[in-house]
């Protein structure tokens, strides 16, 4: 399993691995927001937590179709399925690798981009914390979506359509926590709900993802 994780990380960092694309996308989206809503600092400050969450979610979503598709195309997925590793474990590791290469950089970049959006001083810690808790769920749910659509032509668009509704609870609680934190309200409930969703997702989704991947491999 560790070998698989290391390989996925290695592939992401090698040329053509696409590491950093999600981060660049996150930056671009954040920069585009003031262009679309106007440069008013007060407006930007109000919407900053939501924009950062939405940007992170979209950046996560965009990198999902590479998550399993590359292994599918070159046949590695067949070989992994016949390997002694449980497929559930393989997918959990793939989700972890996705999080480490996409989710974690987004978490670290969010406070920096918060400056661009005039985020309230109280908000920086909360946006970082809520993203840190929430992004693993995004990666795991996304892995399920990727496993659902892995063999399909035009899978990318369908993947977004399938995964977005599943992202709704995570987005609501995550953005809510960041928003309340930025406004100086209590964040415990939202953060606990977010953590609950992440924990439940990490516990259950590998099984769902492995089940659909087995169907797709046959």
């Amino acid at each position, binding site marked *: 399993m560790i070998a698989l994780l290391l390989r996925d990380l290695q592939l992401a960092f090698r040329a053509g691995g696409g590491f950093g694309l999600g981060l660049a996308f996150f930056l671009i989206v954040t920069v585009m927001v003031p262009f679309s809503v106007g440069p008013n600092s007060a407006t930007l400050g109000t919407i900053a937590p939501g924009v950062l969450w939405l940007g992170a979610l979209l950046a996560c979503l965009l990198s999902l179709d590479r998550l399993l598709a590359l292994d599918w195309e070159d046949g590695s997925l067949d070989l992994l399925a016949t390997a002694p590793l449980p497929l559930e474990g393989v997918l959990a590791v793939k989700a972890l690798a996705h999080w480490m290469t996409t989710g974690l950089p987004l978490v670290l970049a969010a406070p920096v981009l918060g400056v661009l959006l005039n985020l309230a001083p109280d908000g920086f810690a909360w946006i970082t914390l809520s993203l840190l808790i929430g992004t693993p769920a995004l990666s795991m749910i996304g892995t*399920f979506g990727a496993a*659902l*659509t892995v063999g*399909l032509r*035009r*899978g990318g668009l*369908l993947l977004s*359509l*399938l995964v*977005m*509704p*599943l992202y*709704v*609870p995570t987005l*609501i*609680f995550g953005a*809510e926590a960041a*928003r*309340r934190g930025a*406004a100086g*309200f209590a964040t415990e*409930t*939202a953060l606990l*709900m977010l953590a609950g*969703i992440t924990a439940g997702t990490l516990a259950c*989704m590998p099984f*769902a993802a492995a*089940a*659909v991947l087995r*169907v*797709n491999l*046959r």
Partner: protein
Amino acid sequence: MSIWEYANPTKFLRTSARVMPTLWVASAVLIIGGLIWGFFFTPDDFRQGSTVKIIYLHVPAALMAINAWFMMLVASLIWVIRRHHVSALAAKAAAPVGIAMTLIALITGALWGQPMWGTWWAWDPRLTSFLVLFLFYLGYVALWEAIDNPDTAADLTSILCLVGSVFAVLSRYAVNFWNQGLHQGASLSLDAEKNVADIFAYPLWTCMTGFILLFIVLVLYRTGTEIRQRRIQALVAREKLEA
């Protein structure tokens, strides 16, 4: 005789053909009767005037929008556990009906909301939940459409339906939580059951029963169509095998 006998496609087609005419007539009578009763033979609401009468379409459609998803969930479980083809096809057949019901509920809600609240749309928890449900339906149907092999499609959509149900419930709670957050509290709520007096309730019950029957007959009809389509595919495949 066990209930699973009806999972035999031939038996299913024969039985559903026998009950469908009655169901068509009954649902038509109940819906038309209920609507006429509700539109013309109930007084206007003292606050809402005659706009309240859209309730006779809105509430039954909303009811079936949720129950259709429930039915798909049960049918998906039956397919996953017992692998009866008819069950998977019934789930497939129910989805577009569910979409139609959700759309009716959303559109009638907007028509009702405009004169009442002065807006077509508000991010009220109830409205938002229906919009999210609509998105789940879209994803489900899109996945069915995207996969060629019918058994693979049935497997994948079933699991999506199970996972989706969990997340749909989560979304419902999340949305409830969200609109009591920084936003002002829900100033617009429409809790039909509570503020409906008996005189409005009887035609409403009639319409709801009519919608339930309409849903059942539509699903039976569409499942029959799906079964026949599968048969054509199977016959074509068999011809290839013989050649």
